[in-house]
């Protein structure tokens, strides 16, 4: 049975059915159909998980069909310990974002169809075992997301959507260019995931192609200074789209870093790795510092993504088994945590009409405020700040633990970024949730103290998705062994790409990182 193709078939067929279904359907019915389809997709992902053998590091459940063989475009799917967790996250978070879509009155049919197309395309990109196939899916996800922002976004959505489109289009062109360039340079049309060795391709060409890929995926991750589209896209996107964007789509970038940058050009990667580690640290610090200065809750969470995705580049640069496993953990936990935070910010925004930290106060108020949302928010920001017992900590710990020997300075700087996360998120919680309940600037204390605030209540069902994510965050934090088992073989294999190991031994720092000259 084509296990993996069904993971693509379910959302794409669902999208087609939604579009082609005759007659006028109410938005609620359309949402229900989308939920069923996404539920099926998640269930099927779990079936795939059950069939998945975590002890093997190879591609599993492979399927192959020739497509345009002359071009090297082959329909070839497979799953390993790197893509399996991401497929699960995709299934879960697309479902979450459909669940938290409640008030779509404008073109609901297209909205849900686009959501399903994105989910299918993301599955395709994670499962593709052919560079061109990956690229097709990578591009396929772009247009629906652009539409989701530009049609269902906020007041300034056109600007944000266009910016997103241009950035991601550049990203796509660079990636395609690198893939085609690889074919051109090696003179084969074999677009499979085989590492390139220096016998096949001169180091200069390798570095050039890797550079293009790095920028291409760096835009998607996003890494400083290519992150500029992300805060705008998030602030203009609706909550479900933000959940999808932060939780799933950014992971295409980090997945690309591990699978294609590191996976295709291990030797060139090893050469660039020290620079990449510093780039990671800069990105982490920049994202964290910029987040501190934000007044808009959503922008703050968006910048936190820039910071937290930097850890993955750091881990990839170090490329030790623990670091790579940490990177996988970080992808999963960032997906869950940032989705959780965007959901909660979305609730606050829906109830108060603002996300401005200078006017929101005291939302923990038990009767008139949003106490449960606030409780989950505290949990979410603590998870993001790397509090033990939640998913963020074990991920960051592994990233740091795996990277410190190779790149001590970059790792220590990144840890500083982890400390800064506590600063901005504590500012967020203390400003918006502590104090007397109010949604006005606290200029006149007397008037402020007399303000009667009448926010609509948060229905329990509105917090169900967030509660589920919070429980997942705690579960992974307390019992990381399950996820560890799932990805350990693959991440160890990635870290031990033979060429990489030899190259690393030549180029990088000695094992005792803090020996003379090791620091810095």
């Amino acid at each position, binding site marked *: 049975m084509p296990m993996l193709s069904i993971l693509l078939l379910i959302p794409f067929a669902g999208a087609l059915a939604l579009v082609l279904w005759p007659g006028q359907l109410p938005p609620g019915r359309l949402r229900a159909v989308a939920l069923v389809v996404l539920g099926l997709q998640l269930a099927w992902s779990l079936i795939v998980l059950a069939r998945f053998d975590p002890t093997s590091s190879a591609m599993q459940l492979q399927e192959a069909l020739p497509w345009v063989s002359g071009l090297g475009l082959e329909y070839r799917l497979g799953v390993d310990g790197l893509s399996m967790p991401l497929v699960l996250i995709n299934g879960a978070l697309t479902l979450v974002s459909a669940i938290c879509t409640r008030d779509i009155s404008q073109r609901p049919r297209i909205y849900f169809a686009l959501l399903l197309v994105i989910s299918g395309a993301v599955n395709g990109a994670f499962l593709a075992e052919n560079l061109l196939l990956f690229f097709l899916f990578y591009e396929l996800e772009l247009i629906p997301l652009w539409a989701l922002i530009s049609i269902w976004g906020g007041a300034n959505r056109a600007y944000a959507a266009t910016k997103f489109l241009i950035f991601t289009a550049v990203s796509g062109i660079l990636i395609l260019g690198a893939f085609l360039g690889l074919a051109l340079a090696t003179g084969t049309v074999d677009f499979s995931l085989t590492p390139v060795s220096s016998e096949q391709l001169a180091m200069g060409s390798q570095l050039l192609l890797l550079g293009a890929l790095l920028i291409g995926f760096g835009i998607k991750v996003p890494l400083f200074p290519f992150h500029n589209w992300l805060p705008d896209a998030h602030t203009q996107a609706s909550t479900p789209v933000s959940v999808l964007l932060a939780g799933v789509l950014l992971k295409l970038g980090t997945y690309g870093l591990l699978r294609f940058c590191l996976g295709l050009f291990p030797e060139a990667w090893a050469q660039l790795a020290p620079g990449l580690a510093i780039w990671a640290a800069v990105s982490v610090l920049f994202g964290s510092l910029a987040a501190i200065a934000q007044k808009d809750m959503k922008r703050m969470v968006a910048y936190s993504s820039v910071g937290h995705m930097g850890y993955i580049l750091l881990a990839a640069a170090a490329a030790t088994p623990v670091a790579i496993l940490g990177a996988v953990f970080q992808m999963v936990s960032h997906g869950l945590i940032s989705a959780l935070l965007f959901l909660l910010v979305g609730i606050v925004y829906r109830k108060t009409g603002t996300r401005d930290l200078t006017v929101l106060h005291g939302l923990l108020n038990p009767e008139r405020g949003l106490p449960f949302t606030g409780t989950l928010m505290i949990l979410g920001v603590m998870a993001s700040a790397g509090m033990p017992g939640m998913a963020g900590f074990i991920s960051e710990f592994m990233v740091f633990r795996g990277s410190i020997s190779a790149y001590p300075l970059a790792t220590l700087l990144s840890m500083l970024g982890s400390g800064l996360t506590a600063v901005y998120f504590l500012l967020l919680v203390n400003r918006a949730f502590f104090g007397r309940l109010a949604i006005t600037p606290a200029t006149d204390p007397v008037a402020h103290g*007399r303000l009667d605030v009448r926010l609509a209540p948060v229905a329990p069902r509105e917090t169900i998705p967030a509660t589920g994510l919070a429980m997942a965050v705690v579960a992974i934090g307390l019992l990381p062994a399950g996820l560890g088992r799932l990805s350990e073989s693959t991440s160890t294999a990635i870290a031990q790409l033979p060429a990489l190991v030899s190259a690393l031994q030549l180029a990088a720092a000695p094992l005792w990182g803090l020996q003379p000259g090791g620091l810095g």
Partner: protein
Amino acid sequence: MPIIPAELVHSGGMPTAAELEAKLLAGQTLLADTREHLIEVVDVLKSYGEVLDAYSTNLIFQAEHQFLVPVPLFKYLDGEKSPAKIWRHLNHDRINFEYAEYCMKAMLWHGTGGLDAYLDSAAFAENCAVIIRRKTRRDPLLALLHPLFSGFLIEMIRTAATTHALGQFWRVMSDLFLDLARAEADGSVASIEAVVEFIKDGLVAAAANPITYGVEVAGENLWVLPPEAGLTFLVDVAVPYVEAVFLRGLPFLGTVSFNAQAQQISPDQAKFAYGALFADPLPTMGAGIPPSLLMQDMFRHLPQRLDGLYRKRTRGEGDVRVKICMSFQKSMFCVTNAAIRGTFPHPLNSPEPAAREANRAYAAAWAARLAAARTDCLDPLP
């Protein structure tokens, strides 16, 4: 600057002291006379009356039967130690008597009026000496402590006396508020004006009720507050109660910092403005807000009509206790209004210039204090 939707926030008006004074002198009610206000005030006072009934019974029980008991494990059980009652107590399925004690402590601590003056008198000290002599004869622990800490037992007896006096005060108020509810139900009270008048009449009628308190120590009945002390309901207990609970109150740990260096709390208790008329209802049921206990008690006794009214507003059942607190504040303004009306030095329609001037000064003094209170609750809801 973000745009805040207007329907999410609301700020009531704040009448000036002059406006309040004019209203008081004209014999108008402070609270706007609307149908909704009438329901809110009467029904919330009805639930308050039921709660006060329990508070009063328990305070009197504590003062009489738990007098100087070192570990009063069952002080909230009113002497009934059935397993079912103990289970309900442990499950916290009960009235929060802690709030009654809180009000008692506020009265004792602020220490104004006739009762407090009597607690410092020589006659009281003599009564205490007799009680302590009898008590220490039977109780070795107290016999040991009393010589070492000479003020200890006297202070405890003062506490018991205040407890009992508050119990007696609330007995009257409970009956009055329940009567009010009956009067409204049979149609004889149909406006806020009538509510204020009804309460004023009740207070005036009870004004001269004597306040006395005796305890039984080792089989002997001894007076703590004897009849000859001449303590009466209105001036010696009701007025200090209004001062301590309605006006001054105690700072809430949940909203005010006790940090001495921050100097948020005035060193002068007379300047305190934390009482029921000044408190912010919005944080009700939050941390460090003691009146939450009272709101919970009233919530458990909420009349159906008021419940129906609340269900239509804001969050319905979800924020009902904040709404109770808001209505309670309105009703306390009515009670204050009645008390002021009942204690004017001269009739309001007196033609004498001296009498009018005295009334004006009296009204001005009240208006000055009330102007800083939560008068924004007096307007009808938009």
